């Protein structure tokens, strides 16, 4: 553009032609950059190929392999590629394994409820009540920092908290609320739910706070001027507007809780077996075909849950 301005100054006569030419070259350059020419298209393909191939080869193929192996024949310590539904029948006819499926769904629903119930008020405070952007970021970072530590250590940290001689029991006894230590705090479904809630609640707080902080304050002011009470404002304005955040948070939490096995193994003393735990034990005893069956079932459950949640919100639009 500078060049064309210079030529303008130099000769008045040729200015029109020079400008037209520069516009034309610029258009050509842009066209070349955007799309259309085959060289641009091959550059795109070259840039995409490594990542796409990596995902197809190491994620999609193994998942298909898992479906395939679930129909293989399980021998005592090996599997054979003779197709059978034996492992599938074994899963659905066994009370233990079917119970694990139900327990996984139950724990998932409970953790979804607790992360929402505990996380929403915090998100409300961060997103709506803290007006200062810097302070907002600081509080949010404060919530995220525990996520920065080792996952296994985070899980393990609940043991000295909830144990019979743990911190919670000691505090409750000191306060005189209980005379005997509560034993059911650790190595029960309760401890698994507490552990998972603490680990995953951040994923609920973040998206909700983000949606809340985008609400235009004048909207709430207008509602108040028209005489709406606090509860009515919350019910008819704030909550509906925060709903996409809730759904995104629910997707995050669901994806992570459904595939869990480490928290339940470490905090339940192997008493609470989720689908993930079944896979780990089966692989441990070389029952690959059976592990694959459980894997396919887990995938199916997740696909249904995510598809159901995505009906409420367009993820690509919101993010």
């Amino acid at each position, binding site marked *: 553009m500078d060049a064309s301005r210079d030529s303008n100054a130099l000769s008045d006569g040729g200015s029109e032609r020079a400008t037209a030419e520069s516009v034309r070259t*610029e258009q050509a*350059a842009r066209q070349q*950059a955007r*799309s259309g020419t085959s060289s641009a*298209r091959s*550059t*795109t393909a070259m*840039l*995409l190929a*490594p*990542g*796409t191939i*990596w*995902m*197809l080869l190491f*994620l*999609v193929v*193994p*998942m298909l*392999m*898992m479906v395939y192996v679930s129909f293989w024949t399980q021998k005592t310590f090996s599997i054979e590629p003779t197709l059978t539904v034996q492992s599938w029948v074994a899963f659905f006819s066994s009370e233990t394994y079917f119970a694990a499926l139900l327990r996984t769904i139950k724990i998932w629903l409970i953790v979804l409820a607790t992360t929402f119930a*505990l996380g929403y*008020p915090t998100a*409300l*405070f961060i997103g709506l*009540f803290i007006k200062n952007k810097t302070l907002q970021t600081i*509080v949010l970072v*404060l*919530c995220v920092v*525990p996520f*920065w*530590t*080792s*996952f*296994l*250590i*985070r899980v*393990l*940290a609940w043991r*000295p*908290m909830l144990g019979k001689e*743990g*911190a919670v029991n*000691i505090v409750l006894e000191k306060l005189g609320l209980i005379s005997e230590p509560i034993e059911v705090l650790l190595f029960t479904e309760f401890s698994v739910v507490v552990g998972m809630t*603490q680990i995953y609640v*951040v994923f609920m707080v973040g998206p909700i706070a983000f949606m809340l902080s985008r609400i235009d304050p004048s909207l*709430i002011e207008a509602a108040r001027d028209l005489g709406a009470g*606090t509860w009515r404002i*919350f019910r008819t304005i*704030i909550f509906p507007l925060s709903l996409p955040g809730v759904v995104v948070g629910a997707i995050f939490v669901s994806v992570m809780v459904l*595939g869990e096995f*480490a928290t339940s193994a470490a905090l339940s003393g192997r008493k609470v077996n989720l689908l*993930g735990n079944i*896979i*780990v034990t089966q*692989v441990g005893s070389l029952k*690959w075909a059976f592990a694959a069956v459980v*894997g396919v079932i*887990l995938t199916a459950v997740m696909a249904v849950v*995510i598809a159901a949640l995505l009906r409420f919100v367009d993820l690509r639009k919101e993010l």
Partner: protein
Amino acid sequence: MGNRPFLRSALAFYTLLFISFLYAPFVVLGILSFQAGPEGGPQFPIIEWSVYWYEHIFGLTPPSRVAPLPIGEALIRSLSLAFMTMVTSTVLGTMTAQAFRRRFKGSGFVFYLVVLGMIVPGVLVGLGLALVANNLGISRTWWGTAYVAHVLYTFPFAFLVMLAIFNRFDRSVEEAAWSLGVTPMRTFRKVTFPLIFPGVLSSMLFAFTLSYDEFPRTLFAAGADLTLPLAIYGTFSVEIHPNIFAFGVLTTLFSFSILAVYGILMSLSVRRARRASIQEDIE
């Protein structure tokens, strides 16, 4: 809503409780890591304050009934793996995001394919890779199958970060360089890279930390030589001792120091960018 003083202070108080719920286990873990040893157990009360369990980790204590944590080689493996994963996923993420700056057919498919890597549960990724490796007769190793699994997980993070960065900056800057006859390679080095540097740094941070801490994907994919999280998980099933708490404190400090390095590099790059823009103004 924001000017209801009672509601405001109630929610502020609640948030305080919430944050202490998030931090309490760490505080307890940190306190108990200073338990007396070797007879002190992983619970209250503290018999005597000591750094015995920290010395225990580094093998500075006389042998006792508590076995030392098997972390020496596992730590080196985990650090190497995290470094390999960091480089690969940052390169893949930048390349793929760069491709997304142009509209192309099937972009939706590629987008969801990449994002799938962070959605599919780790235990299934590990299982699938183990099945394929077993069937092809490939032995499972931390630098082979586990490395592949880690990149599957961290590459989507790098991709999303870089996508956000590319969406933000004005491509006319690059076009200007091209139209002035600067070669594409030089343009990338001198124009594009400085602009996307914060994103690259963030991708590296994500990839390194996620890989260093990765557990469910590694469990089936790593084979016989364990990474750090696997070694730690192995000690869960038996009785736990405060040495694992001391280890928890140390590894947390390590994560925070990585975060600090990231913060320093980031602020340096911001300052350099500001200085460059001031220089341009003067010229």
